[in-house]
């Protein structure tokens, strides 16, 4: 059993940001084990993705290029990875914990009867095992987890690892046939509606969030304006989502998204423990709240006690003048 495999998620023929994070983490594991790093590239017209995988540090690329593999369906890709893994017996299979990466890892581990560790935020290699740090109990505690025998299947939380950098590497990919014909794939994708504009919360390096303090749907206007100036995404607390002020896809917290941006600006958010669970791993947290006793100030590095309807526009103006 040898070799580290990493799933390269691609969208619209381009390597996804989360795949670059996975490549960087998998490179560490491959080097730690002294094994080769193989990138798995699946889709249609993905020669460019394979080239990118070499450039971002893969030693080898194993791929399949076929219409049945685009858009991604786990019933098409899962059996192919399982078949390849049974033939070639890698020691580790890794993927970013995106919606697609999670499905794939769960499928592959189930059909290989392999151990699975989900949502790693840090990892080290000890005695041939990948020891994975992962949050549990909604981020209230941490654990160190590892697969005790056989192939180790591991997913990595969004933005927990830095993206791999270009190495200038290149190589020729090994292309294989698909495992399942279209007629044998049960699911048919009949529509896809991409996110309208804006930045995806889980990919964003800057998030500006609003909570109960914004007071209503129109209260998100200054939140959006600041996010726009910073090229960031708009987040929200459960209170704001449950009040119907902003759609659920913006919710950060225990029953929303877990995010880990470089900068998280919480405005009008008291910082209930459920909200903290979704954003406490942000690098820098800024709190803006009228109430100096709000729990969010205990988590933040910087705080402004004041009215968000005054503070946010002032920040927007200041950033505009500084960022030109």
């Amino acid at each position, binding site marked *: 059993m040898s070799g580290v495999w990493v799933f390269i998620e691609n969208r619209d023929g381009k390597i996804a940001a989360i795949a670059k994070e996975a490549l960087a983490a998998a490179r560490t594991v491959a080097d730690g084990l002294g094994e080769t790093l193989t990138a798995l590239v699946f889709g249609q017209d993905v020669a460019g993705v394979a080239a990118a995988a070499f450039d971002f540090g893969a030693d080898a690329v194993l791929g399949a290029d076929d219409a049945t593999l685009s858009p991604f369906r*786990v019933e098409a890709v899962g059996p192919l990875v399982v078949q390849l893994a049974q033939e070639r017996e890698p020691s580790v299979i890794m993927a970013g914990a995106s*919606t697609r990466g*999670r499905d794939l*890892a*769960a*499928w592959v*581990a*189930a*059909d290989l*009867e392999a*151990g*699975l560790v989900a*949502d790693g935020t840090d990892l080290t290699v000890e005695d041939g095992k990948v020891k994975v740090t992962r*949050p*549990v*109990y*909604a981020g*209230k*505690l*941490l*654990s*160190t*987890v*590892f*697969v005790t*025998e056989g192939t180790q299947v591991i997913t990595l939380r969004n933005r927990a690892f830095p993206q791999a950098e270009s190495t200038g590497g290149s190589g020729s990919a090994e292309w294989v046939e698909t495992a399942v014909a279209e007629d044998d794939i049960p*699911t*048919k*994708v*009949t529509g*896809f509606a*991409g*996110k309208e504009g804006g930045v*995806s919360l*889980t990919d964003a*390096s*800057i998030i500006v969030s609003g909570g109960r303090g914004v007071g209503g749907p129109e209260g998100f206007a200054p939140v959006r304006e600041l996010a726009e100036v910073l090229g960031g995404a708009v987040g929200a607390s459960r209170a704001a989502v449950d009040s119907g002020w902003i*759609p*659920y*896809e913006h919710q950060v917290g*225990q*029953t*929303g998204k877990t995010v880990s941006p470089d*900068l998280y600006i919480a405005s009008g958010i008291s910082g209930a*423990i459920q909200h903290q669970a979704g954003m*406490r791993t942000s*690098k*820098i947290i800024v709190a803006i709240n009228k109430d*100096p006793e709000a729990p969010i100030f*205990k988590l933040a*590095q*910087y*705080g*402004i006690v*004041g009215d968000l309807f*005054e503070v946010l526009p*002032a*920040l927007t*103006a200041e*950033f505009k003048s500084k960022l030109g």
Partner: protein
Amino acid sequence: MKVVVCTKQTPSTTADLTVNPDGSVSWEDPGGKPNVVNPWDEYSIEEGIRLKENHGASDVIAITMGSEESQEALKTALAMGCTEAILLSDAAFAGVDTLGTAKVLAAAINKVEDVQIAIFGKSAIDGDTGQTAVQTACQLGWTPLTFVSAITAVGDGQITVERLLDDGKETVTAPLPVVISTVKEINEPRYPSFMGIRKASRATIPVWAAGDLSLNSVGSKVDWSKVYALPPREGSVEIIEGDSVQEKAAKLVAKLFEEKVI
């Protein structure tokens, strides 16, 4: 058409957790209700009940793998409107990994018979792996449909759903039977009715053990014995002071440039 809802009992979202010297985790809740139905499962229970109300499902059966005290979670499911509840409990199930859990759940779903849809919450808030739905589907040989934000049609042996993916919403059709995992957007869970609570409190919940499911050992290939408290965030908050809001904003912006996060 029978529907099974796979639920789990978890610590409440407000619970204070303690890691004991032996590595086990215990918790207390300031509100006095330390254990709840996994919050994500409220949506899957609701959707199961709606499949009965709107799509002609005959039975909505809640199942939970856990200790005897997990009956409480199942009683909540019954009080909301599930027609039956089954507890899967055996010393052999303790400490299994997600694949072991999937094997137990799949065996139970097969034993129920004639199930067309099994529904899961997005993940459980304690282990937080979000992998059991797909792995249960693999064990059953059924199609997994994860991150479902709407069930738009059920009929003629098929189901059409919308899935909330990282980069957008996908519409997908699959033949039944399927395993679904739901996201919060799918519905607004109802509160248990007074009558429902009364009925649930009198219900006797059957317990199925490993022998009932013809499972010998389910095992685990994952060691997660090391659980520990989070390191505290370093330092304390720096409150930005100033004579005007503009001055405070300017100071904060300067700090953020220094931190190199812009």
